[in-house]
């Protein structure tokens, strides 16, 4: 939008337009430079340095951090970090899938309700996220701890061994992730459902598509942009999650975010932490790239914009 505005008028008074552009763009550009570009460059360079006393980065340049991230340490190779990475990917995958499975019908249901109830129902979806993540995680701790009705129920069903709680566990982390990110899926899906062209659905039925095929060919493609937007909004923060896995996961529930954080704090190895952060960034970009390709293939091109 800005682009066309600028190009259209640039032929008339280039100098003035350029000055205006500079005035308006410079503050934002400076902000991004100071608080995004420079720290990122610094972080990346830290990853290629050696770890000095107290874990602070120092010369000479080395790839030690990446070797240690890959699991090679003083005692030979250990799979710990690899497990953490795989656990992060798995938790992201499972929680995102669960969020989709829950949010899709919820979003659809809200659109079928009377217009006056819809804002209220959406509010009900959003309200929990007004409370701090930490506090909500503590809430789950109390619900899932050993001896609570939920844990007892799970134990009596044989899902967990008696006197063990549902917390701390990988299950608790998945639950926490799903709970935290549900609104981020419901909202874009709701807006996709709200804009749904019902005539297309009826056209599919009219053209001999059974209910399943009507969904596949007329409903799903229309909600795909919302779905992909929701997946991006859920999967990226879930992959980098720190709070939920820290509080609900215990020692065995560690995710990549916790690994990175621990290297900057307790374990004190800044280069290793930075290398972890780069890995996270790369994984995220790869994910976005895949989503984009997927959106183009399923959704017929321009309608999916990430």
């Amino acid at each position, binding site marked *: 939008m800005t682009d066309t505005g600028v190009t259209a008028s640039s032929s008339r008074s280039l100098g003035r337009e350029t000055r205006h552009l500079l005035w308006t763009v410079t503050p934002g550009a400076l902000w991004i430079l100071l608080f995004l570009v420079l720290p990122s460059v610094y972080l990346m360079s830290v990853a290629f340095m050696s770890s000095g006393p107290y874990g602070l980065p120092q010369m000479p340049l080395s790839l030690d951090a990446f070797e240690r991230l890959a699991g090679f340490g003083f005692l030979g190779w250990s799979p710990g970090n690899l497990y953490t990475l795989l656990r992060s990917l798995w938790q992201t995958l499972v929680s995102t899938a669960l969020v989709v499975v829950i949010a899709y019908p919820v979003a659809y249901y809200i659109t079928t309700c009377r217009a006056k109830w819809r804002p209220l129902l959406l509010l009900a979806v959003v309200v929990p996220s007004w409370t701090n993540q930490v506090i909500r995680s503590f809430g789950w701790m109390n619900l899932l701890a050993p001896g609570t009705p939920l844990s007892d129920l799970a134990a009596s069903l044989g899902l967990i061994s008696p006197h063990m709680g549902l917390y701390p566990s990988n299950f608790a982390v998945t639950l926490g992730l799903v709970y935290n990110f549900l609104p981020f899926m419901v909202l874009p899906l709701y807006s996709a459902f709200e804009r749904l*062209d019902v005539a297309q659905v009826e056209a599919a*039925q*009219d*053209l001999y598509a059974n209910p399943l095929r009507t969904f596949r060919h007329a409903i799903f493609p229309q909600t795909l942009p919302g779905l992909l937007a929701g997946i991006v909004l859920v999967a990226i923060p879930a992959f980098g999650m720190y709070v939920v896995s820290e509080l609900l996961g215990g020692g065995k529930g560690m995710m990549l975010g916790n690994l990175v954080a621990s290297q900057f704090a307790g374990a004190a190895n800044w280069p290793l932490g930075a290398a972890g952060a780069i890995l996270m960034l790369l994984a995220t970009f790869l994910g976005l790239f895949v989503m984009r390709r997927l959106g183009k293939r399923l959704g017929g091109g321009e*309608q999916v914009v990430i």
Partner: protein
Amino acid sequence: MSETMTADIADRPGSDPAAENSARSETRRQASSIEMQGLHKRFGHDTVALDGVDLTIRAGEFFTLLGPSGCGKTTLLRILAGLEAPDAGALAVGGRDITEVPPHRRSVNTVFQSYALFPHLSVRDNLAFGLKMRGLPAAERNARVDEIAGFIQLGDLVERRVDQLSGGQRQRIALARALVCEPDVLLLDEPLSALDAGLRGQLQVELLRVQQRLGMTFVFVTHDQDEAMVMSDRIAVLNGGSIQQVGAPREVYERPVNGFVARFMGHDNLFAIRARDGRRLTTALGTLDAEDPGDGALLLIRPETLDLLPGAVEGPNHLPATVAERLYRGSHAEFRLAVGDTTLQAMVSNRGRHLPEVGETVTVTVAPEDLVTLSE
């Protein structure tokens, strides 16, 4: 249910490609009639969309449902398509009761008002959609899509994307997408209403030719009485969820059964009959002799049946009048005439004769056989 459906498809000449081609290019298979009995539909508690509709549409007919918005014509069409279920009543196509049959199992296709093309599919995939859902192999789908594209003269549009098409092109694709399935009945929901006047006229003619060549039963919904008269073999005029009149365009236009139909067909010259003495009818205009007046409470005088004589002339069915307004239209002129304390519209074709000026005194004459009465 699925068994009858399979049998239905297998019975179609479409299952034999050779027979199919000859059938489609010339006479096509037997068209289907539609029978509706006592169809009722209400939305919510107090909105009555259909209030007992009985209607028979003949096989191969171009049938139009005409009425103002909210008259129930679209609801009736949607019930035919299966997109809406009637609260009561029965519906049969080709003698087979389909009241309970879901839309995807009806051999009925719809051209939607908004066209409802699938934007994520190419034009070709849009056209092939119905055939694909019916399980036709890709080669046959392609052949039939190419055939319909030639028939509707889509040219190279087939390889485009939907968002590259203009409104008129989308309309034709929507028509082709429904026609390619060779349904028993084709439903058209105000398919031309989104187009500008020129294109609309052109597509009206095209649609009519397609229907005549295929001999398929078309059910067409519109609120435009001119369009209805141009296109239809028969018209049903609806109001308030019930059918007011069914008939050929001339019948509905020239012999409307009540005031609603008359007004909807564009008639303004309606006068309450104050007194009646055999064939002599007295209205605010004066007293006129009718040949076969009927027993309605309203007198209809069509503007094109009136003649204007210059000056004051005495005679039977001669009314003294003054020209209040004249609209010159080239081929004809429209007059608003003051007769007594009421006004009368007249339309006079322009044969190069004298056209009275505003303020001129004239005499209006009407033939007794052109006077019709109808109920309110």
